[in-house]
């Protein structure tokens, strides 16, 4: 049964030091507010898992909250590098960062295996690619029916999964709509989970009969954080702030400008800072 909490209480309950954790979102519905709260609470030694780590992982890595990142594409989409990630991986600042690198297909399959309670995922992948040479978790299995050799990766099992969604009802059922990425799989592959939502409503309202809903008994905590995905977006509420992604490139290039940005925009702020984006961007 999901508990409806404040963001601070929810992060306190769900994200712990040393967790293997995923703040998932495939461009859409990225839980930025929860990431900022995690930084404010000073979580450390996290293993950050995500297919497409973008700015929120750059921020978590830049403040030294992570010891390892498991990923398949680590960049600022359409803009360039994640400078904090590169600084940590290439130069060990502010602490060394270990990486475990996969392809998207491998991670998507591994999340699905985690949700399904399987030990590993098998798929037709990595053929002729060099990642298996540098990532020892990538192995293979021979199909007992056809003899085909398939790539395998261990299932993703998380201590905690953090997602953002459009809404939850008061019982704690969570509705996701639009590009849903691997968030359902991440929540089902995790011991503890947190969904931040744009709003908590009496009834989830009209929706497709096949809508993506996480039942309340699969989610640990829910926090209402309007605008909580900014600068990512929430379909039906507000658009992606592409200009912010472009501006981040300059902010993150330099250690001092990054630290100043975190102080002003994360440490001295709270979840209410996100509300301005929700209010401003909601369609008329």
């Amino acid at each position, binding site marked *: 049964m999901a508990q409806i909490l404040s963001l601070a209480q929810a992060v306190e309950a769900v994200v712990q030091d040393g967790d293997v954790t995923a703040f998932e979102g495939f461009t859409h519905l990225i839980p930025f507010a929860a990431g900022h709260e995690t930084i404010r609470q000073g979580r450390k030694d996290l293993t950050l898992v995500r297919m497409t780590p973008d700015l929120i992982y750059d921020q978590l890595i830049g403040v030294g909250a992570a010891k390892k990142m498991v990923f398949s594409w680590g*960049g600022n989409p359409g803009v360039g590098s994640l400078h904090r990630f590169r600084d940590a991986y290439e130069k060990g600042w502010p602490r060394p960062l270990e990486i475990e690198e996969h392809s998207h297909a491998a991670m998507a399959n591994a999340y699905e295996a985690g949700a399904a309670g399987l030990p590993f995922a098998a798929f037709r992948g990595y*053929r002729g*690619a060099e990642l298996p040479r540098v990532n020892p978790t990538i192995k293979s299995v021979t199909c007992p029916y056809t003899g085909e050799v398939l790539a395998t990766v261990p299932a993703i099992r998380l201590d905690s999964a953090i997602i953002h969604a459009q809404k939850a009802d008061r019982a704690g059922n969570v509705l996701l709509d639009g590009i849903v*990425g691997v968030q359902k799989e991440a929540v089902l592959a995790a011991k503890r989970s947190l969904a931040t939502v744009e709003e908590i409503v009496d009834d989830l309202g009209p929706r497709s009969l096949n809508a993506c809903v996480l039942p309340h008994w699969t989610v640990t905590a829910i926090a209402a954080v309007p605008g909580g995905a900014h600068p990512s977006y929430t379909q039906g509420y507000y658009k992606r702030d*592409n200009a912010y992604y472009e501006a981040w490139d300059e902010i993150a290039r330099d250690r001092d400008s990054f630290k100043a940005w975190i102080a002003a925009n994360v440490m001295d702020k709270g979840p209410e800072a996100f509300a301005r984006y929700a209010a401003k961007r909601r369609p008329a």
Partner: protein
Amino acid sequence: MTAGGKPAYTPTEMMTVVASRALKNSDVCFVGIGAPSAACNLARLTHAPGITLIYESGTIATKPNVLPLSIGDGELCETALTTVPVPEMFRYWLQGGRISVGFLGGAQIDRFANLNTTSIGPYDKPKVRLPGGGGAPEIATSCGEVFIIMAQGKRSFVDKLDFVTSLGHGSGPGDRERLGVKTKGPTRVITDLAVMEPDPATKELTVVSMHPGVTREQVADSTGWPVKFAGKVADTAPPDAQELEVLRDLHARTKAAMRPRE
């Protein structure tokens, strides 16, 4: 086309237009972000209105009015026929063999069209750590064929890749088959200077067409291996007025949509 001796289009426009022409109306195309996305949408807005564009975020048959900055912009979802979860995209649609063309770019390419988007310098001690493979390792082997679009230069067209992110033709004929890969792999590389195709016998990329005003010396000087030319090298047709107008309109709409809303 020249106006007073000066080309009326840029090398990047030339590259995008040529890449768009490679696509057919009946194609189902897995689109990478950036240059591939511009080329694929130009094709859709000109000669291939029926093309199915798929982005790895799960959007199928999407018709964006502006070019997305990321593979998961809301524009892609709102204009798609349907949007599926990401595991389904990679399992049923890509691995399932339902995509005819994958459109890729990269930081480095070698003469067999293997690509590197992972690391400049050694993997463990990179000079530049790039974003990584994303969908590319499986796009390169699961799509019916692969088109590659990249600006040409000695730093990107290299003798030896620093890291093989995704398979092209390996180290020559028969490599894909030996690895159990049944698809064609890269069949065309489109640059800002020329079009290359793998030689049918050696699988080595060979110049088959050069863009207007480009010389063989220029192509050779921009390639990190002794590049070969086909027996007959065609002249690439320059962009026509409609192609240029549609491409420029698309970029103008995209730029307008990018303006900060604060």
